[in-house]
């Protein structure tokens, strides 16, 4: 079943076509990697899918509904979870409170004014933290956690919304290699077990080729290739973009 269908998506910033007529689709339970050099339009694409930016033209259809141009909180409610390139958590709250907030929001109880928030959905939050391996640090404020740990908390937050689609912008950046593989293995497990579609960008080619079911390649705002990892690896256009003198060699740098 097609979970997300992007059709002819375009965003222009001051005359520069950051995303230029991009179309692709994502199945439920699939891990789709979006790769491309810096400035290829990956983050812009993500920001349109999650509502941070409104597309100039094109459609973003999630489970049959066009969500293009809706605000982020609305898109989240339709089942899109997200992690950010620079992890975004609530630094003045404990790890568990971060997850509780997402759960409270899912229960539409954000507007409650009386019962202390700490008493809402504690077990479920603890379970999510356990799933990402952060149960021991549940009571520590996010502001003092190591960056890799913050990223794992962020994943727990994103999962707390019970998303149909998970957008992960460089999920493993700043992590040690061992941590990386553990996180991606977990992500794959989540996708395959619960049928969550995962769209992720990643600079580490090991991660991309090791975990993605399928890969799409962006360069200067356009989609230049897509297919399974083997096909993409051998695609001459991709090789050209990646080994072109004007671009740095991303896979090799990591």
């Amino acid at each position: 079943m097609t979970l997300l269908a992007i059709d002819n998506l375009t965003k222009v910033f001051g005359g520069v076509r950051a995303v230029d007529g991009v179309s692709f689709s994502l199945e439920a339970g699939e891990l789709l990697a979006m790769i491309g050099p810096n400035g290829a339009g990956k983050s812009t694409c993500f920001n349109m899918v999650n509502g941070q930016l409104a597309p100039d033209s094109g459609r973003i259809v999630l489970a049959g509904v066009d969500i293009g141009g809706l605000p982020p909180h609305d898109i989240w409610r339709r089942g899109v979870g997200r992690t950010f390139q620079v992890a975004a958590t609530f630094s003045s709250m404990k790890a568990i409170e971060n997850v509780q907030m997402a759960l409270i929001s899912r229960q539409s109880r954000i507007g409650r004014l009386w019962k202390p928030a700490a008493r809402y959905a504690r077990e479920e939050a603890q379970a999510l933290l356990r799933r990402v391996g952060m149960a021991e640090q549940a009571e520590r404020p996010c502001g003092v956690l190591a960056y890799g740990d913050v990223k794992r908390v962020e994943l727990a937050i994103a999962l707390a919304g019970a998303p149909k689609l998970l957008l992960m912008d460089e999920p493993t950046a700043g992590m040690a290699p061992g941590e990386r593989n553990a996180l991606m293995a977990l992500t794959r497990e989540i996708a395959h077990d619960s049928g969550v579609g995962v769209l992720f960008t990643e600079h580490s080619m090991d991660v991309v080729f090791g975990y993605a079911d399928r890969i799409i390649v962006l360069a200067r705002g356009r989609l230049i290739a897509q297919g399974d990892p083997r096909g993409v690896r051998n695609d001459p256009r991709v090789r050209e973009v990646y080994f072109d003198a004007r671009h740095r060699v991303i896979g090799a740098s990591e």
Partner: protein
Amino acid sequence: MSFSGLTVQLLNGLADASALFLLAAGLSLIFGVTRIVNFAHGSLYMLGAYVAWSLTERLSSVAGFWISMLLAALAVGALGATIELVLLRRMYRAPDLSQLLATFALTLIARDAALYLWGPEDLLGPRAPGLSGSVVILGRLFPQYNLLLIAIGPVVLIALRTLLAQTRWGVLVRAATQDREMVGALGVNQSILFTTVFALGAFLAGLGGALQLPREPASAGIDIAAIGDAFVVVVVGGMGSMPGAFIAALLICEIKALCIALGDWTTPFGLTIAFPHFTLVAEFAVMAVVLVLRPWGLLGRQQETARASAASTAPFTPAGSLTKWGAAIALAAVALLPFLVGGDSYILVLSIDICVGILFAASLHFIMGPGGMHSFGHAAYFGLGAYASALALRRADIPMELALALSPLGGALGALAFGWFCVRLSGVYLSMLTLAFGQIVWSIVYQWDAITGGSNGLIGIWPSARLASKSAYFHLTLALSVAGALLLRRILFSPFGYALRATRDSPLRSGAIGIDVRRIQWAAFIIAGTVCGLAGGLFAFSKGSISPETISVGRSVDGLVMVLLGGVETLSGPIVGAASYIVLQDVISRHMQYWRAALGMFMLLLVMAFPGGIVGALRHRFTRT
């Protein structure tokens, strides 16, 4: 009005705009680089005028006059550098806005210093030699000095642009304006950059003050007007944008000139509009409109989000049972106060003021601390609450208890209307929009004689007979203040309160977990406005009268000072801050002639010793040991 008259009025506006630009340019520069909301900029301007006056008295030759102007500006520039080196340098790492508290303390000291050094009388300076007369323009006499001013604005603008565009220093200033942390990363000596920027900004303020001397006497009141105008211009133009500031100054001054030129105008329906009355609030009305339409000012760019501020904030911890019992016992002791000090004691009067102050500060803290929205116009809700009660009692003859119950409604309605606009902005722009709304409310109340009693206000707002005694009213105020403060505290621990903090910590993450950031912030405004309105109502009945002063900037600033003094990042900060500020002011003002300077000094000491506020410092000490 004739065409020639209008043309000359526009020339008047041009001269005023130049003067205003000089004042604002320095502030914009300082804010852009250091992110300091420099309240003392108006004081530097005032000192520029005073120093220039003293110098022109001694150097009365033609050259002496112009040398005096320059020397005055240099002196103020040097003072600015000193302030940066001695005071502000120690505070860049301190939490948000504690520099604001420090510069506010400086304004108090500067004012009393001016009074001490130059005496209370207005000091009218000499006319500019060689430019003392007038020229004929379109059949009207036009002051020669204004022609000079018209030229100076653009000259300074071009000089600043050149400095910023073509020197290494300028490149660093621009880099710092766009991204403060980048400069640190570039390995630039940040402290030299900050000191020089502060000195240049102060120099421009001093020059602005000195050059006003031929048009305006030096007096101890010009600082307040100057700082308000300067902020408006900087924000309307867009923070850090010199051409923006120039255009903003032009816009504001021309609109004022136009209002004055139009005079009273009778519509075809017989209604007379007195345009000159709009000059009272023209700049704030312009600011409100500009910010609603362009959230970053005319030529401003979106600010980077403050990265450092939230990181230092610790999670809230619910009070342990020991704290709860301690607070309950303390409260019971306070409730027994009338029996200890006597029912007619002044201590009760002061305690009522403290209770009102606590409620006011707690409501401001609610949106300022956990909400991260620094309201500079919080007095609006206080005043609306006070006036709602007063009008209900005096104009509608509603019983006092019911009238008091209407005060939260007054505050809430104000916050409902203004909050909707304010939450669309962030950072200093949001602060300035709150200030603009505060000033607009103030000006309406100040002008609307028939309803609000105008500048005189309303009198005869006393509690009903059963609440008339001091101890009864004290108990009422205590009960409502404690209830209000506890309610706000309860809300901060509720899902809503967490969501509010979430919007402050990371709007990005908030949106991505389904929190409608603006809606939460708007609701927070309304809650704060409601509680603040109650504080206003309690205030009105404790004084028996109210005047537009309840809505003034001064009261908003008092609120800020209370919150910052106590510590913006702690829940009990506003309580401690309000109580200590009110007691401090009361005691000092009763026992000292130069009490404002003394209060300023004291605040400086506090802010240096406890950068995170009193409660913040105490907590820090206890958690460390």
